[in-house]
């Protein structure tokens, strides 16, 4: 798990201070250091390579233009991932898809089941991450963000809550609903076949 209270390392702090003074070369070094996690978050949130690249670039530009607001007592990665996740949520909402809200019944019951999310077929031709991406794409932005932050970045509940601006119980609730929705997608795609014999179960 990341430590949200940890401060920025000294070398990085120097780069950030230079960047805050307008040194774009220093900021370019920062971009190089963090482009991978930021791109991964954007891709996991948006599910589209081109859009993820655009979102990554926009995230760093927003970070640069708001650099004077960055608190060096925080980790820069946490700050920039917050910008990225907020930007991706905005993009997802602009797509004008009728996502389910927290209070709604499970969203998965309302959407048609794509052929491609059958895990039996996908297991042969796609990697696990691709399958996960397809199921992630079915989730609303509010559910997707905590899943990405928890599983790919090892964020604690508190960090997710801080990033999303919600309470810790709300984070737990969204994570549970997200897992449940994804599980429902899987069981629906299984139709009559029982899943218990197909999925690897964690050691008891």
């Amino acid at each position, binding site marked *: 798990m990341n430590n949200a209270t940890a401060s920025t390392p000294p070398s990085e702090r120097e780069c950030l201070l230079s960047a805050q003074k307008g040194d*774009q*070369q220093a*900021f*370019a*070094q920062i*971009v*190089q250091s963090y*482009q*991978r*996690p930021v*791109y*991964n978050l954007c*891709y*996991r949130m948006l599910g589209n*390579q081109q859009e*993820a*690249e655009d979102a*990554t*670039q926009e995230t*760093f*530009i927003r970070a*640069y233009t708001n650099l004077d607001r960055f608190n060096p007592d925080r980790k820069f990665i946490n700050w920039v991932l917050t910008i990225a996740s907020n930007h991706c949520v905005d993009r997802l909402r602009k797509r004008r898809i009728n996502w389910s809200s927290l209070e709604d019944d499970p969203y998965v019951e309302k959407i048609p089941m794509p052929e491609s999310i059958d895990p039996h077929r996908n297991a042969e031709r796609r990697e*696990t*991450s691709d*399958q*996960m991406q397809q*199921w992630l794409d079915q989730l609303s932005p509010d559910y997707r963000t905590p*899943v990405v932050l928890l*599983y*790919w970045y090892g964020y604690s*509940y508190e960090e997710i809550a801080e990033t999303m601006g919600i309470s810790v119980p709300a984070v*737990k609730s969204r*994570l*549970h609903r997200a*897992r*449940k929705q*994804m*599980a*429902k997608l*899987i*069981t629906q795609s*299984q139709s009559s076949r*029982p*899943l*218990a014999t197909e*999925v*690897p*179960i*964690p050691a*008891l």
Partner: protein
Amino acid sequence: MNDCDAILQRLSQYLDNQLPETELSALRQEAAPRPECLAMLDAMLWVHRSLETAPMVETSRDFSVSVTHELIWRQRRDKIFLGGILTLAALIALTPLLLVVWGGLAAALEPGLIQNALSWAVSLISDAATYAVAALTLLRHMPQWAMVSISTFLSLSFLLLALALVMQKAPEQLMASPEIHRQTA
């Protein structure tokens, strides 16, 4: 919340390391009598494990170059936009002052200039009306080829006039008017 929902809720707590290791076997035993619930439980476990092992997505693109270029471009764009806004604001702010200065200068240099300009405009409108009536009378008796020729000539003239007006400033135009010069002489 039904029993299966409660089981799945506890499973989520287990996955978040909030329950002891032995909880999973207890949950499976509770769900065992209901195949649908057991399937959901196993699917949630599968989702959790798959998410835990899903790798970071890689990109070959170096964003440092594109971000730097974009930043430079946006800074230039912002400067141009700001410069345009400032110029426009300055012009708007200066317009009353310029009008006052021009009016004062005109009154000092040519005491009857404004009155002359107004009378010139009135006479121009009056002349135009006279010419229009005459032209209409002529048109009634004019052959078609002549009408086409005049129409073409007038259109071209108006176009040239419009072009000339666009190229010139209004005060200069007034001062350059032969009617003004004739009346103020």
